[in-house]
């Protein structure tokens, strides 16, 4: 209450000063009147500052500190420490210790995970992963023998409908009762250091199987079946360390409970934010970095994504350390300190497991903005080399949650540049809508900003007949057919149309901001629809992109223009100090904060500490 009264006093003082300035203008200035004069010079009174406001009590401040860093008020022992202090200096020491200790507590990591979810806003990992069953793992699904069978705990390949819904004759689970099926004992990727028994076909390590038509086919690539996924060829099993299989099946793992891959893929972006804060990495790595954090299930996802795209099998299948948490010593989250814990969220350069996500650094962790790749389907022939990794901008979770290129651009502009896409005022007139909504019609109000960014997000698509799965168009064996739009080929190319080919042709119009490709070129080579390099003569946030392929060019501009810094400090301030900054009244303060944040190498933990030690943090009631 003391504080509230003080705040009120400040408000009254400021308002009265304002009234004196404007009460009696000598010559009222009418907008448009060039001869108009000014108000009288306002009587100057010292502007109130945050320091003029009485701070909250030490008790209330301690409560704030604990709510900020632990998500709860202080414990009894924390309060006792303050009660035992006998001077303001001692009380300040208690507060300082609470801040310092809190910033080093794993609770701070948890708070940053929560902050990451709040900031990044990606929802459940569903698009490209989930129909009425989960197929996001791109793996053959495994059932497990019951305890009262001949092989308790052993795994078998599900036989599609039979095991899932009881339709058909042969079931995979029949193997559980057979006396001597083929077996293989392996150290499974999901539980390193242990062993499990695989039964029947699951035990196979063959690298090549046979299609129903009798053609040879590479194992390790899954195909969709009703409710589950299976190896695409007879004779294929689970491969090395059961890396081609997933311990569970579609109907039972299609949820977001802890321990499910679907939840992990949703978590990944927020975990990266928390990881950067915890390990004092620059927060800009969230868009510039070629790395992520991943537990074993997320690693399995990237590995399957690599193989599913037809990328070299031998190197990926030959990797026998990807699932071992104690190999490599990568920095990890503080909640899983055990070196052997497969649940630990530890750093990963995805290129190691999914080579189409390019590190541009030889596989070394990097967020160097000098990383670059110039490639586009108009000037360069052949398959796309991949997509340069750009933090969350190229992660599967957000690409699924924001499922098309323009929503992705809009959300990322909102998230990382604090842009809003409100409808234009009703009294504003626009030129008639033409071919390009970025330059004509009411749409241009938003698309002028959105479309140059959206073009970079078009390569991540979802292809499939039952549950679509994620692919990078034009990468690996997913080459865009040259006869894609031949009417006679519509049925053979139905998967492409399921993925959106009609929409691409209609919305990705030739010679527009988003698709700066001629109609003739698009007609001759539909792969050029996926032109995802922002031309260097475009301007984003007042800067010209450097010609890097994909979202990485946008990431670089986000950082170099200062937009990311200004937006990030606003979000951090709102979450940790307790109120949103007002860019209309506090633009100078936002710029100053952003400058300090950038000067501090964009490390979140010391920045949060600085905010919590500021007078502003002590203001409230």
């Amino acid at each position, binding site marked *: 209450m003391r504080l509230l009264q003080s705040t009120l006093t400040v408000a009254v003082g400021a308002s009265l000063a304002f009234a004196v300035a404007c009460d009696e203008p000598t010559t009222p*200035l009418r907008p448009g009147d060039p001869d108009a004069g000014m108000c009288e010079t306002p009587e100057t009174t010292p502007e109130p500052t945050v320091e003029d406001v009485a701070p909250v009590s030490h008790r209330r401040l301690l409560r704030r500190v604990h709510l900020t860093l632990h*998500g*709860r008020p202080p414990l009894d022992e924390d309060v006792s420490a303050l009660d035992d202090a006998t001077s303001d200096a001692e009380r300040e020491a208690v507060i300082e210790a609470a801040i310092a200790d809190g910033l080093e507590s794993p609770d701070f990591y948890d708070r940053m995970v929560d902050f990451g979810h709040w900031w990044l806003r990606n929802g459940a990992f569903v698009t490209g992963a989930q129909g009425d069953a989960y197929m996001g793992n791109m793996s053959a699904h495994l059932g497990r023998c019951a305890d009262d069978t001949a092989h308790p705990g052993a795994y078998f390949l599900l036989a599609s409908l039979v095991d899932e819904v009881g339709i058909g004759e042969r079931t995979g689970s029949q193997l559980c009762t057979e006396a001597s099926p083929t077996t293989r004992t392996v150290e499974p990727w999901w539980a390193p250091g242990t062993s499990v028994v695989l039964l029947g076909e699951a035990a196979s390590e063959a690298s090549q199987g046979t299609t129903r038509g009798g053609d040879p086919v590479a194992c390790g690539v899954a195909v969709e079946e009703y409710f589950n996924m299976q190896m695409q060829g007879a004779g294929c099993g689970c491969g090395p360390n059961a890396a081609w299989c997933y311990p569970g099946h579609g109907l039972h793992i299609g949820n*977001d409970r802890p321990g499910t891959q679907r939840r992990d893929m949703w978590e990944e972006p927020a975990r990266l934010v928390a990881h950067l804060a915890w390990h004092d990495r620059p927060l800009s790595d969230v868009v510039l970095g070629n790395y992520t954090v991943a537990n074993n299930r997320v690693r399995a996802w990237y590995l399957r994504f690599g193989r599913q795209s037809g990328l070299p099998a031998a190197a990926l299948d030959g990797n026998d350390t990807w699932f071992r948490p104690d190999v490599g010593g990568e920095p990890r989250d503080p909640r899983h300190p055990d070196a052997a814990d497969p649940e630990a969220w530890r750093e990963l350069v995805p290129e190691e497991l999914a080579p189409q996500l390019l590190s541009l650094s030889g596989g070394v962790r990097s967020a160097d903005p000098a990383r670059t790749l110039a490639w586009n389907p108009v000037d360069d022939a052949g398959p796309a080399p991949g997509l340069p990794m750009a933090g969350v901008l190229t992660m599967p979770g957000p690409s699924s949650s924001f499922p098309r290129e323009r929503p992705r651009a809009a959300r990322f502009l909102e998230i990382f540049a604090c842009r809003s896409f409100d409808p234009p005022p009703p009294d*504003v007139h626009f030129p008639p809508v033409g071919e390009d909504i970025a330059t004509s019609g009411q749409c241009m109000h938003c698309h002028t900003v959105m479309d140059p960014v959206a073009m970079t997000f078009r390569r991540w698509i979802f292809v499939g007949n039952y549950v679509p799965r994620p692919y990078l168009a034009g990468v690996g064996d997913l080459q865009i057919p040259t006869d894609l739009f031949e009417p006679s080929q519509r049925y053979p190319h139905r998967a492409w149309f399921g993925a959106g080919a009609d929409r691409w042709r209609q919305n990705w119009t030739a010679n527009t901001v988003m698709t700066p490709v001629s109609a003739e070129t698009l007609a001759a080579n539909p792969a050029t629809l996926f032109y995802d390099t922002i031309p260097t003569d475009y301007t984003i946030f007042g800067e010209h992109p450097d010609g890097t392929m994909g979202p990485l060019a946008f990431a670089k501009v986000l950082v170099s223009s200062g937009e990311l810094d200004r937006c990030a400090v606003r979000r951090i301030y709102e979450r940790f100090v307790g109120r949103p900054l007002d860019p209309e009244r506090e*633009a100078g303060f936002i710029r100053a904060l952003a400058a300090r944040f950038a000067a501090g190498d964009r490390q979140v933990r010391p920045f949060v500490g600085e905010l919590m030690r500021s007078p502003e943090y002590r203001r409230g009631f």
Partner: protein
Amino acid sequence: MLRRENAMAACAALLAWAATGCSGEITNPTRGEPRAAAPRLECAVSDNDAIRLRLQPTCGSCHGAGTSHPFFASLSAFEDLLVYDTRFVVGGAPDDSELLRMLEGQGTGAYAQMPLDGAPFATRAERGETAITMAELRDWVTNLGEASGRPAVPDPAAASTRRLDAGEVIAAIQLALGAEPTGAHHPLLDVDGTPPLSPDSPTLDHDYRNPERAQVYAMLGGASYLAQTRPEERWSPSSVTAITQLAQGACSRAVARNNPQLFVEASPSDTLPDGEAAIRANLARLYTRFLHEDPTDADIDALLNDVYAPGEAVSPRTGWTHVCTALIRDPLFLMF
């Protein structure tokens, strides 16, 4: 508590009055009477402000308060976001100022012209459709003064607090009642068999009551990031209703269990008037425990006379449940 309510009401009234700012009616200088049909005008307080007000009729509708680029929301916004941002205006160098280039339809950035519609500002100005000419704008940029030097500090008048989010308030209730904050299971909060549970909880299990528990959490204003729903930014009628019911249930359980943290200075069997001294001391103890603030005598009087005593008329347990609930509903408990 009454003092706080009165103060907040007065504050709201003052803010509403101050918000009228300079946009009041123009007074007839000779008769001192308002001009009946006078438009609401603003008065400029500086050269920059005069430019702002003359650009505003053309630019303000797209660049007003609450927009992505609120250049015309206020003089400070105009200066901080536009005039002294060298991406737009370079003092002394009109030819290098992107603002003027855009107004002339020669923008080099994302926007080739302003306004976005057909004719750029310069053309409109030539037609006499704007409140300021390009020549005047070039002259202003050429002679642009130094920035006012407004300190880059937070706005001291901004409300610097927030509501506790659902997870925080659940943990705060548990701690106040003497329980450890737990993940999924809150015995004290198990009101009607549905203790609140975040639908994003990392401790989710197979429980058929989870949807109902998630609903209680949502009613408290909790987020579900999985479902892309944001946390409630302010206490709403719905969330205040939910917290009231939750507090009543939790307090009733804690009081019925004689939780020792609730009865440090008084026993559950103390009654008025004989036990008034102990009851007052216990009220002060609970006030500090729940609100992390020392109470005044008036605060204790209010708790005793307005909350505890009417409840004790039913039973001491009811009285203490009322006190506990009132403290949880206190703004000091619910806010940051």
